[in-house]
């Protein structure tokens, strides 16, 4: 009922197109803007960045981060457990800076499973991911030099040979 009302309201205001686009982009699985807040978190950077790059909070929705952070003892096949205090601080940072454009009821664990990620990388040949210089789709910085600063701008992409 509420949705219908807002639809009528936006129709009246002539902004249906804009509303529909922002809500349904990538089926509602859109990354946040920005992906990394200007105020970063030291513990997040240090702990999440010790085995892989620290993935920016805006790349996933809050529900995904809650799932990830509650299963760290079995984190993609590895024990990545933290102390309860560390876990609390990092979860708070991830959840409060999670994607602000996610509308779908989904909560994937892998960034590579999100609709926005797959759409953005759809033109890449699978062989590129397998290059020794790339090491797979989780290694953002291989092609996005500013990935750790949250810079995924298409114009600065450099795919290594």
């Amino acid at each position: 009922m509420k949705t219908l009302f807002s639809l009528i309201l936006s129709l009246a205001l002539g902004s249906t197109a804009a509303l529909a686009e922002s809500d349904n982009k990538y089926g509602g699985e859109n990354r946040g803007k920005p992906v990394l807040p200007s105020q970063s978190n030291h513990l997040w950077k240090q702990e999440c960045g010790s085995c892989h790059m620290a993935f920016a909070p805006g790349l996933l929705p809050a529900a995904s981060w809650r799932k990830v952070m509650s299963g760290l003892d079995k984190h993609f096949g590895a024990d990545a457990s933290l102390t309860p205090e560390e876990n609390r601080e990092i979860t708070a940072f991830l959840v409060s800076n999670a994607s602000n454009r996610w509308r779908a009821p989904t909560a994937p664990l892998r960034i590579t499973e999100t609709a926005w990620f797959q759409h953005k990388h759809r033109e890449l040949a699978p062989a590129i991911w397998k290059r020794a210089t790339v090491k797979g789709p989780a290694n953002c910085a291989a092609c996005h030099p500013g990935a750790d600063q949250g810079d995924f701008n298409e114009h600065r992409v450099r795919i290594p040979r």
Partner: protein
Amino acid sequence: MNRISLLLAATAVLTIASPSALAAQPGSALLDTYHAAAMKEEPGFRDFSARRGEQFFHAKHGDTSCASCHTDNPKAGGKHAKTGKAIEPLAPVANAKRLSDAAKVEKWFKRNCNDVLQRACTAREKGDFVAWLVSVK
């Protein structure tokens, strides 16, 4: 009794607060902790062995060993078997930060023992390993 415990406390404070003492013997506080724990775990326990620690490091458990990520040389940098992320050398002689933070050491023993051995490491295993690392010149 009171005077003795005061003296003990003062010694402990001095040991913790003195960076030169820590720099001279990396891992010595850790070894003390693991020694006390090993005495509790094994009634007949005497002392750690660097040689056993070295064997432990290289021992294969299925396909993996500690060396899978850290390489066979504790003075060399390694890389994460899955992500490829660089790992700094383990031996304090090659990396002064190693063994300087007890909580960090315990955090990584917990994680890596679970991943490689599918169980927690014993105090003896931890102590042997630390004894070997500090013996590497």
